[in-house]
């Protein structure tokens, strides 16, 4: 193997060679420069591969001495891992900087090379003083390079950086001197042999100063104002090196020193990391400048990496593989993502984040940015996801629950500001554009590819062995690459991809999993047909759609906790992409992402708490321990957020209604069932093992009942047809949860029965309205009317969906209600029965409103020529109508498999006699009911048909305004504010209290962030004082 000395030799030699070559010509100087960096990166890769292949670690003693007198360089697997990463990203950043460097004199190149020498030396060195020298090499070259933009901001930022950096070096040097005085050596390996030398008074102070100095270099909150100025003012290329390679080297020094630290020191250091993570993210939410925002984010990520390695050490973990999985994964994620994002900010130029809409017209750049945001948020399949899972799992296993909570809270804030930014970037607002710059784009693409490769590597080294799960992101990327194809071709391909997933997955499922598999996969497949009805490219739909369907499959197939969470997060991400494309405002996707991530974090917290002690990553779902209760309740709470129960439903109306007209049906009918599937999977896993389940089921029941009530109530006041249906879905989810809470055979059968019928009728209604809306180009019901004449088929299917929804005989809805009320009364929950009944009655109001406003009444002049909805919208509706008819005629076909899947729970079973189902409270024969109802329906129908000649048609202008002059045109329409009179009675219940609550909470967080960031006064001297105070406080804590 090549000696590690050559890593330093290469760059130092280049420092002398570059100016010479530059004399010959600019390109020669640049060539030597790039060749040296590429050689360093190549060496790193070579070492990493050979050390992974089992080659022994190398120790080199320079100048003929042995330790402790010589400079010792150590190259083990950990060193080579960091070396290959930081040199690679350094190379990419140098390519980005190429355009700027070529304008500078040759010494800019030598400064870059010195910087790299410092970074590599820090990683390899085993001696405190050598570390000091390399750190100064890194710092001084960085101080100089920060000034590269040569404007006032860069100069003042550079000077502030020097003051703070100078103080840090001072402390490091004093600490080093006293370490030598106390221990008689500065050599790490000798110090590690007798760490007790540094546990006395002076020794402790010495070690403390060294660690404090390193921490200051890592920019802890709040002593980091100087660093933020540098991130904002420096050239993005230089800054990307500081925050990735430079920070990485210092982090690695800290890693090397970990074994010297006492428990108390580790605890405080870990705490400092967590504080930095949470508060830097918090302050970031008020930031508009991309460089500074990325600075806050970089600092927070550094804090998380610090916390990662410090807590592992605190838990007594010694295996390098675990450090690589947690700290290494977090760092690698940060490294490539932050590089990518800083370089992208170089491409976008000096625009505040609100103006990043320029990316919307650039699919590749937008994709790269989206990838970076997703990876940085810790979502799968990126390394950050695996690393966070491992880290949080270890925290939970060691009882560090508050730390776990803080990390999740910080991550949620991070998701908020990152996805808000992505929202700005995805919505094209101006015609401003950015010029192409391949020198910047290529490194970004390279970073993205490396990140994806690392994702495969990390997912392989951990536990997701289920190949289907790997296909979820792969399918997304494949369909992204297929984007240039016409929309209809993509629809067919998506149908084929999803269909084959269903064919492969469904036969392997059984019980509840099979029922939900048919619902989620079958339901999505049928409704995807509607996509054929729209022409054009339809960019941005199918990557998300296919990923979502594959996630459904993954959720049901996986047998591990990690696999489940992976699929769940992929599903969230996929559905986010769908709503991001369709939504009119940036608010809806963001709200959805925040609430979904919040819910996912609850599930995550529950899952890792329930993992059996000492489990591997591959712990099965069946091994989860719910006897503590908390874990189970956290998981259920997470699913309830995803289901959109009252109180956390803020995201729901927009999400279900604002996507494309062929996507909304799938989101509202199928995706909503994923939460139900999760609820049932975990309730059956935990059945009987959770303490306090009686109380739990009462609370769950009321949550369900109130959701049914408020969802229904809010639906009646909507003007927008799709929003009305969205709220109606919320109400139906309430019934499902209410039925599920009963924990009895009939209750669960009812819940799943309602879920199936809701899937069918909501699919029909959304598709039908979608078909209407796609012809009329408005979703306001008062602008529609009379569509029965133009779209009779859509009307027919809609009417059937409506009857099924309302729960009147003879259609399937009645069966659901019958089962639900029977189960509720059987359990003795009379109040909830009354609430559910009342909600059903209220539901008639919105049913009436929507059919009346959209299909009945006057046909508008402008819409006299509209055609029937596309046949591709009608086909899935008719498939669902047929299913509803079959299940209405022969309910046994549906109920029996469901109750078989539910299995034996508390309470009486359902008994069958022919087509009659019965239980303790009564019986129901679906076939007879159907026939009787049909008969009753026929009599007035025949009578009405016989009198069809004497009907007097109401004309458009038969209405008078009783001398009132309307102030707005739509107020003259009977369908506008249709239920105004009910607001007197019930309006107080539909006040936007929940929205006000969440907005208030958001306002508070935002105000705290605004107050906190005033710490960063901009004055270099204040920053120096903050550094001093920080060190003092740190000392008091660590003492």
């Amino acid at each position: 193997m090549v000696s590690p000395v050559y890593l330093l030799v290469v760059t130092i030699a280049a420092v002398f060679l570059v100016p010479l070559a530059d004399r010959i010509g600019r390109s020669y100087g640049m060539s030597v420069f790039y060749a040296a960096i590429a050689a360093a990166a190549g060496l790193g890769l070579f070492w990493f591969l050979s050390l992974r292949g089992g080659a022994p670690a190398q120790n080199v003693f320079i100048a003929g001495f042995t330790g402790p007198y010589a400079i010792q360089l150590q190259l083990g697997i950990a060193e080579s891992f960091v070396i290959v990463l930081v040199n690679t990203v350094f190379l990419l950043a140098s390519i980005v900087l190429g355009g700027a460097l070529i304008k500078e004199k040759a010494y800019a190149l030598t400064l870059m090379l010195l910087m790299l020498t410092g970074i590599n030396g820090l990683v390899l060195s085993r001696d405190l003083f050598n570390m000091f020298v390399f750190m100064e090499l890194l710092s001084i070259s960085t101080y100089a390079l920060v000034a590269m933009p040569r404007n006032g901001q860069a100069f003042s930022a550079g000077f502030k950086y020097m003051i703070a950096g100078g103080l840090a070096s001072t402390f490091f040097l004093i600490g080093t001197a006293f370490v030598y005085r106390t221990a008689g050596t500065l050599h790490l390996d000798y110090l590690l042999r007798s760490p007790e030398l540094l546990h006395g008074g002076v020794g402790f102070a010495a070690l403390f100063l060294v660690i404090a100095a390193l921490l200051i270099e890592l920019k802890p909150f709040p002593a980091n104002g100087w660093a933020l100025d540098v991130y904002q003012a420096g050239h993005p290329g230089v800054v990307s090196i500081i925050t990735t390679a430079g920070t990485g080297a210092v982090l690695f020094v800290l890693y090397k020193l970990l074994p010297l630290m006492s428990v108390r020191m580790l605890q405080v250091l870990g705490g400092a990391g967590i504080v930095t993570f949470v508060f830097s993210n918090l302050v970031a939410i008020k930031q508009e400048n991309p460089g500074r925002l990325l600075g806050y984010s970089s600092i927070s990520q550094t804090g998380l990496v610090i916390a990662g390695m410090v807590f592992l050490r605190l838990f007594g973990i010694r295996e390098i593989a675990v450090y690589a999985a947690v700290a290494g994964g977090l760092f690698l994620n940060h490294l490539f993502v932050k590089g990518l994002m800083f370089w992208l900010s170089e491409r976008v130029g000096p625009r505040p984040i609100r103006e990043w809409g320029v990316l919307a017209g650039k699919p590749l750049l937008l994709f790269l940015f989206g990838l970076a945001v997703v990876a940085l948020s810790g979502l799968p399949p990126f390394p950050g996801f695996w690393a966070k899972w491992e880290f949080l799992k270890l925290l939970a296993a060691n009882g560090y629950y508050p730390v776990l909570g803080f990390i999740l809270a910080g991550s949620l804030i991070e998701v908020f500001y990152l996805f808000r930014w992505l929202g700005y970037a995805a919505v094209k607002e101006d015609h401003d554009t950015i010029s192409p710059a391949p020198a910047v784009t290529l490194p970004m693409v390279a970073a993205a590819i490396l990140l994806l490769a690392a994702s495969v590597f990390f997912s392989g080294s951990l536990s997701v062995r289920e190949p289907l799960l790997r296909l979820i992101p792969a399918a997304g990327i494949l369909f992204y690459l297929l984007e240039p194809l016409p929309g209809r071709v993509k629809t067919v391909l998506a149908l084929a991809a999803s269909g084959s997933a269903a064919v492969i997955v469904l036969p392997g499922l059984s019980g509840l999993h099979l029922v939900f598999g048919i619902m989620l996969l079958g339901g999505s497949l049928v409704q995807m047909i509607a996509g054929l009805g729209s022409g054009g490219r339809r960019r941005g739909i199918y990557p998300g759609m296919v990923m979502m369907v594959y996630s459904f499959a993954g959720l049901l197939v996986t047998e591990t906790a990690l696999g489940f969470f992976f699929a769940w997060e992929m599903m969230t991400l996929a559905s986010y992409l769908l709503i991001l494309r369709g939504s009119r405002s940036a608010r809806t996707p963001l709200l959805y992402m925040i609430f979904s991530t919040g819910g996912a974090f609850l599930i995550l917290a529950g899952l890792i708490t329930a993992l059996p002690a000492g489990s591997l990553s591959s712990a099965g779902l069946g091994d989860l321990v719910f006897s503590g209760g908390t874990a189970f309740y956290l998981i259920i709470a997470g699913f309830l957020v995803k289901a959109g129960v009252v109180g956390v439903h803020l995201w729901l109306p927009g999400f279900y209604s604002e996507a494309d007209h062929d996507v909304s049906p799938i989101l509202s009918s199928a995706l909503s069932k994923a939460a139900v599937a999760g609820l049932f999977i975990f309730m059956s896993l935990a059945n009987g093992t959770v303490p306090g389940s009686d109380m739990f089921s009462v609370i769950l029941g009321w949550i369900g009942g109130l959701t049914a009530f408020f969802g229904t109530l809010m639906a009646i006041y909507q003007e927008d047809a799709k929003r009305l249906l969205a709220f109606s879905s919320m109400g139906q989810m309430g019934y499902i949860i209410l039925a599920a809470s009963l924990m009895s055979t009939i209750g669960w059968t009812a819940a799943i029965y309602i879920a199936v019928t809701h899937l069918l009728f909501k699919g029909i209604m959304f598709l039908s309205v979608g078909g209407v809306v796609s012809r009329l180009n408005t979703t306001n019901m008062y602008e529609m009317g009379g569509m029965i004449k133009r779209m009779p088929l859509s009307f027919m299917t809609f009417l059937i969906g409506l009857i099924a929804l309302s729960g009147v005989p003879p259609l399937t809805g009645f069966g659901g209600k019958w089962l639900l009320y029977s189960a509720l009364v059987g359990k003795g929950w009379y109040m909830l029965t009354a609430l559910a009944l009342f909600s059903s009655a209220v539901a008639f109001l919105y049913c009436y409103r929507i059919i009346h406003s959209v299909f009945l009444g006057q046909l508008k002049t402008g819409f006299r020529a509209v055609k029937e909805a596309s046949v591709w919208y009608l086909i899935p509706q008719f498939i669902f109508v047929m299913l509803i008819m079959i299940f209405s005629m022969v309910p046994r076909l549906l109920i029996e498999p469901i109750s078989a899947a539910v299995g034996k729970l508390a309470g009486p079973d359902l008994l069958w006699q022919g087509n009659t189902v019965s239980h303790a409270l009564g019986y129901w024969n679906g076939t007879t009911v159907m026939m009787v109802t049909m008969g009753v329906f026929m009599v007035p129908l025949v009578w009405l048909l016989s009198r069809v000649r004497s009907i007097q048609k109401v004309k458009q202008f038969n209405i008078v305004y009783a001398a009132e002059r309307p102030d707005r045109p739509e107020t003259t329409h009977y369908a506008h504010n249709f239920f105004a009179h009910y607001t007197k009675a019930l309006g107080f219940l539909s006040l936007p209290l929940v929205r006000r609550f969440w907005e208030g909470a958001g306002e508070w967080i935002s105000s705290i962030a605004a107050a906190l960031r005033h710490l960063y006064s901009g004055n270099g001297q204040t920053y120096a004082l903050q550094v001093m105070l920080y060190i003092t406080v740190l000392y008091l804590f660590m003492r």
Partner: protein
Amino acid sequence: MIHAVTATGIILILTGLWCMLTRKHIIRIIIGFSIIDTGIHIMIVSTGYIRNRTAPILDHAVGLQGAADKVVDPVPSALVLTAIVIGLAVTALMLSYAVKLYRRKRTLDINNYAELKW
């Protein structure tokens, strides 16, 4: 007991720190930094001092034979040489920053350079 030289070093460090944190003039801040540096150097040299021994220079006065018992610990002295060089580089760079800043705004009051904040 703290050696008098060590004490001098510490006093210089604290003086420099006070200067850095209270003076508003950028040149004075740099001078403060320089004083800290000097203090550290003195302190490091003092850590290697052993009473009644001479400088670690192997000339004819010390002789090669038994030199280890006649000279003070040479390591800190060697370290200080490196530290002085680094300190020089940092100070020079700070001063060049000061020049650049002055050319922009014609002022060296650090309070005038707070345009980047929050």
